[in-house]
């Protein structure tokens, strides 16, 4: 009888620990610069969880902890109304890709956020840092 209750207590403890481990499973999010340009990108995932990154062409960077808000800085707007900076959310275990061109126009970049299952969360247009030239 006593053995059984000890076993139950062990199982309960093990279950609790397992649930706590799963609940606190850490995550991350990544950003891929697939443009030929240098990019300034900020990932904010908490009041102290912030990275101000300088991306080289084709560079990848990731940040552990969680998803958050990504800011991609583009070129100085001289024409049109396309944003010179883009704010886009990235999920836990998700990623953001910046690719050159938008709607066939080379002066813009496309910034897309993807979920962990690779489905697209959202996309935005950004004025390319060099204006596409």
């Amino acid at each position, binding site marked *: 009888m006593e053995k059984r209750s000890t076993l139950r207590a062990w199982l309960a403890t093990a279950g609790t620990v397992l649930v706590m481990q799963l609940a606190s499973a850490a995550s*991350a999010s990544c950003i891929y610069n697939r443009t030929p340009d240098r990019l300034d990108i900020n990932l*904010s995932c*908490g009041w102290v*969880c912030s990275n101000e990154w300088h991306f080289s062409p084709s560079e990848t960077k*990731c940040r*552990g902890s969680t998803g*958050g*808000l990504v800011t991609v800085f583009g070129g100085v707007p001289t024409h049109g109304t396309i944003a010179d900076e883009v704010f886009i959310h990235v999920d836990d*275990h998700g*990623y953001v890709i910046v690719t050159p061109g938008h709607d066939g126009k080379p002066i813009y970049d496309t910034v897309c956020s993807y979920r962990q299952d690779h489905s697209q969360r959202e996309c935005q247009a950004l004025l390319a840092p060099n204006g596409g030239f």
Partner: protein
Amino acid sequence: MNPGKRYLFAGLTVLLAGCTQPAADSPPSGIEAVYTDFFKEADTDRSGTLEAGEIGASIDRDFAGLDLTHDGVVTIDDIYSKEQAEPPGSTRNPDLSSHLPYDTDSDGRLTAAEHRAHLLKLIGEMDIDGDGLISFTEYRVTRRF
């Protein structure tokens, strides 16, 4: 004043008061809301200011989030977890200091001490009046939102 007019006057007063609520009472939206939530999460005693205990807890929580393998050191293995989605055709960046620029000695191992030193420097820049506390205003001004 007859009762009908009195009710009408009272109703109009209440309506007017509702319309002239200060904008500060309206909930923040977009980026502002995200940053405000970050601050609220850390401000566990809801004092509107982040004190030493809350600052320390935030730093510890951030390091725990980075240290996926729970070995007390952040390495490149912590950057790419099994759960992390990677787009087809992507290549991994093996340089830890590229992901986390505060690996100050660039030895590929970010210690809790390096992480803490980096964040304390960042927090010191936020503490405009130098009182050791971070008010929402200081946070807002330094994060520019």
